[in-house]
């Protein structure tokens, strides 16, 4: 079984932060907002996630002020759509990430004056992304575990492809390794993540 190999491969340099240890549980904060319009919870959630969204957007090539705006808009959307959040279907970070990413697509598209291509497509995908195709809490913690156990070299490529707006050949250049190596490391990492799907079958 692939997964057994994965857990045996320790990577010590990398540790995912557990939001439940250092912060209020993010899922609970969103539920508080949904149930009571809880402003205190929103403050905590904003403080926790807005700087991360900003940082992610800057990595994707946004200017600081654009990234700040996307972070603001994404968090506002979190407030307004909190009722749609279902902790059984998604972790808070995944839900917020898909909201931010879809906003980013909208924003970039508007900048490129490509909005003739119908913003409804994005609206629809937003609903789809936030309602159905999410994975269970159990699978989500497996995903976290797989990332934690990835060999450092695979994690590095996975992170660079995610955080930075870089092509495979740019990643290869920045690490001074052949493009083929970048592709094979990424493929291996994705294969390990995907194994979560086959272990649990149904989400």
């Amino acid at each position, binding site marked *: 079984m692939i997964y057994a190999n994965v857990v045996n491969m320790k990577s010590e340099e990398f540790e995912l*932060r557990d939001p439940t240890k250092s912060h209020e549980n993010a899922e609970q904060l969103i539920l508080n907002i949904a149930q009571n319009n809880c402003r205190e919870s929103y403050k905590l959630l904003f403080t926790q996630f807005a700087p991360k969204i900003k940082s992610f957007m800057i990595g994707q090539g946004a200017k600081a002020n654009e990234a700040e705006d996307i972070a*603001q808009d994404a968090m506002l959307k979190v407030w307004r759509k909190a009722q749609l959040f279902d902790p059984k279907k998604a972790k808070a970070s995944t839900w917020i990430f898909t909201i931010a990413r879809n906003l980013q697509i909208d924003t970039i598209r508007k900048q490129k004056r490509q909005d003739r*291509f119908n913003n*409804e*497509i994005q609206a629809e995908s937003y609903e789809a992304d936030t309602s159905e195709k999410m994975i269970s809490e159990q699978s989500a913690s497996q995903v*976290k575990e797989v990332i934690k156990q990835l060999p450092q070299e695979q994690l590095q490529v996975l992170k660079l492809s995610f955080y930075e707006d870089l092509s495979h050949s740019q990643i290869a250049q920045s690490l001074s390794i052949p493009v083929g190596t970048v592709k094979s490391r990424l493929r291996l990492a994705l294969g390990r993540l995907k194994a979560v799907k086959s272990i649990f079958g149904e989400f």
Partner: protein
Amino acid sequence: MNPQAIAHHLDDEIIWDFVCHKLEFGENLIVRTHISLCAECAKTLAVFEAAGGELLNDINGIEMNDDALDLALARIELKDVEIPKAKPSKSEAFGFDLPATLSGIEIKNRHFLGPNVWIAPIEEGKNKSQTYLLWIKGGQDILPHTHTKREMTLVLSGGFKDGDNSYNAGDFVVCDDSISHAPIMLADEDCLCLVYQDGPIKPQTILGHLLKPFARI
């Protein structure tokens, strides 16, 4: 369409590029449409998005402006005045109803590519990349041809055989310039595909042009 019958899926790398927001508009459209039709790839996407969520959680934040929290708290007091958008009407092309992911997409007038082969352009993107709907009459032979650097095809209706492989509604296929092939269309069903290619359309290769007089094209 029977989702179980989908035999040709998206590569992991393509789904990851979708998560990381690295695809061109046409590629994005094809990936989004395939995922809406394919439970298997939708699950892979869910896993990869969960990975994205974990990586986002792990990122070192960059401090927001000093007044960011005040601004955020003020904004949530504003009424949500977003005007609900009308549900886009179902799109149709060549007599086929298109999947919901293509609703409202602007499809330009179709034009003739060859006997029994028509295309309806959707977008010309960076570096003359093309996104279009391709319609081929059932039973029409396709001349041997190669591809631009990267070409993605999603079968929306009908199907074709290519060597030992059969491609039917919902199936995804990606080709590059190393592949030369001559797909055989199903005899009894017209075929509609959504295609993205990263260069201008070359309907036939030099070989195709040479064969033209002999092939009734």
